[in-house]
């Protein structure tokens, strides 16, 4: 997640509008005057599908567009590759305005650099699995041998190589969507649009396919725009999410951030009843302001003495030792430091509390819940390289549970 924060924007959407109907200009005018889409429909019969949407999608991230049915999310994703013609506004992909492209440029872009996965899979029933996977390459004019070779590679990636000569109707739903995914990967696009791609699958298969997608993403970062109405899905795969309401994009951001600070009542209601602790990791809640850090001592007696003084002065009992590159060395307390200093030949190891383990930042909040609740001391949290990222204490735990309680109240 962190790696995409500073990435350049892959897609920039500016004031994008889609009006369905014969007189979009009238509706545009009324939108500019600030009329509500329901009012516009009542007066003119024009349906506003997407209403001045503006947001950016960063290169290499999975960007989830969320909303209830009818909120315009499927319309919005279709404006990105112009399956639907935008009524007004801009869609820039790598700096090029898709909305202004001529037909030739558009076809070229679709063949070369963007692909799509559909809710109903949309495989061609008369084509075998490998022919389906090779569809994009075939349309682009690649020779049969080469395209089927490439299609076999991607089928291998999604675990379907053995079914290459079957017809889609001979496969289960989950397997069919793997074919859909293979077809989208075959042209090796940098941008993939996924419209409710896993919504037609049962929960187990959906979870499995999310895993397949995340694995693929780990191997090779693509920009993925993923439409979904499933919050669990958004939390699991989404680097950032956009919430849509009545054709408008009402909030864009990190899913936990949105859950904590909803922009309006709609967003708040959207997240109500969703147990956020299911998706929280220890790293998400760890804070650095709870426990003081001390460097590895040069002069043990003096440094530890100062540490004890410092802990007393700020009324804390525990502290963490870190080395110069911020690796966690151990947990100390006033008691352990005093005990160490009281010995005839004090050693640093004597001051470390051996019963306090470091928690990996990626472990789920729920797994450590009882352990943190039952122990008075704070737990240090480290990333996969052993670098200190923060502490989890009973106080932090309680604050989160209280927030969760009041959010769902």
């Amino acid at each position, binding site marked *: 997640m962190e790696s995409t924060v500073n990435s350049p924007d892959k897609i920039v959407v500016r004031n994008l509008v889609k009006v369905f109907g014969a007189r979009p200009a009238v509706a545009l005018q009324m939108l500019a005057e600030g009329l509500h889409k329901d009012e516009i429909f009542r007066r003119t019969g024009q349906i506003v599908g997407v209403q001045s949407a503006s947001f950016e999608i960063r290169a290499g991230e999975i960007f989830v567009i969320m909303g209830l049915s009818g909120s315009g999310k499927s319309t919005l994703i279709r404006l990105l590759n112009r399956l639907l013609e935008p009524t007004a506004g801009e869609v820039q992909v790598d700096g090029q305005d898709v909305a202004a492209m001529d037909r030739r440029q558009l076809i*070229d*872009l679709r*063949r070369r650099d963007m*692909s799509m996965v*559909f809710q109903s899979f*949309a*495989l061609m029933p008369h084509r075998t699995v490998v022919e389906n996977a090779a569809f994009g390459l075939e349309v682009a004019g690649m020779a049969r041998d080469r395209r089927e070779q490439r299609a076999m590679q991607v089928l291998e990636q999604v675990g379907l190589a053995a079914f290459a*000569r079957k017809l889609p109707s001979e496969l289960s739903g989950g397997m069919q969507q793997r074919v859909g995914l293979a*077809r989208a990967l075959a042209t090796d696009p940098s941008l993939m649009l996924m419209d409710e791609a896993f919504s037609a699958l049962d929960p187990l298969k959906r979870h499995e396919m999310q895993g397949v997608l995340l694995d693929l993403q780990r191997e090779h970062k693509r920009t993925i725009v993923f439409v979904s109405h499933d919050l669990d899905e958004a939390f699991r795969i989404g680097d950032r999410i956009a919430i849509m309401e009545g054709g408008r994009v009402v909030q864009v951001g990190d899913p936990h951030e949105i859950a904590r600070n909803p922009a309006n009542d709609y967003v708040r209601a959207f997240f109500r009843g969703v147990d956020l602790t299911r998706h929280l990791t220890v790293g998400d809640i760890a804070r650095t302001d709870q426990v003081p850090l001390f460097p590895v001592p040069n002069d043990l007696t003096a440094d530890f003495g100062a540490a004890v003084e410092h802990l007393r002065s700020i009324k804390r009992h525990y502290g963490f030792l870190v080395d110069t590159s911020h690796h966690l060395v151990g947990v100390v307390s006033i008691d352990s430091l005093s005990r160490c200093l009281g010995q005839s030949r004090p050693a640093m190891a004597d001051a470390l509390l051996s019963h306090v383990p470091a928690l990996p930042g990626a472990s789920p909040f729920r797994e450590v819940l009882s352990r943190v609740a039952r122990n008075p001391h704070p737990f240090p949290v480290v990333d996969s390289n052993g670098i200190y990222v923060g502490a989890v204490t009973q106080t932090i735990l309680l604050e989160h549970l209280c927030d969760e309680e009041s959010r769902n109240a």
Partner: protein
Amino acid sequence: MHEAIPIGEWVSQFINFVLAHDNGTLESFGHVIAGFTEAIEDGLVALPNWLVAGAIALLGLWRVGWKFGLFCAASFFIIIATGFWPATMSTLALIIASTVISLLLGIPLGIWMAASDRVAAVVRPVLDFMQTMPAFVYLIPAAMLFGLGKVPGVLATVIFAMPPAVRLTNLGIRQVNREQVEAGIAFGCTPRQLLLKVQIPGAMPSIMAGVNQTIMMALSMVIIASMVGAGGLGNDVLASIQRLDIGLGFESGLSVVLLAIILDRITESFGASGPQPNAGLRQRARNLLARREASQA
């Protein structure tokens, strides 16, 4: 008879006008159609009857199943044994000629209708007219324009039999799964690629149902077309009515029915894969091939 709006008079005046001012165009057009139909008939008659019958029976065996293959063979045996083989081949030639012409016109027209609502709005009432106007009514002007014989028979049959091909092509293309069409576009199909790779294959069951309907309607029409001298089994049916010959009527009628069943089942099998997808020999061969490949992999 006095009419406020003499539409009938206008139509007959129009036909007479065409007849008076036509400089051989109609005649040469008629020659092409007659030539086409006769070439098919000559071909069917020139081949030994057991070869034609055997070939069709084998087709039935391949497409439908061994029971139907046997049925075909038995049917042709009855037709040959009752002496209706030449007339049946003549009728078959008329059906083939008018079906080919109907499809050559009808399928592209159906595709055009599917692509444009405006075209569809214009064509639909024309199709209604073609299908519901009693067939005898356009046999008369057709015979006036082209003379008695096969040509007016084939043309009247085309008018009567073409609409289902047009309608079902249009319907089939419009009913292709929306996301499949979107997938075609999203992966960069040109309109032509979309038509050939997504829309027509997706509409194929419907188009084949249209072909089947066209053939069946052509069969019923070519019998009626014997009234303008198109020949074939219709002649015998007509003769049996005129002479009140029950035996002849039944025999010739039976040939029509048997031919109809054979044509229907065979063309139907080219549409949807049928009630039992594994019944056809083609499917069985494919399964065998797939199994061999899998065992090699």
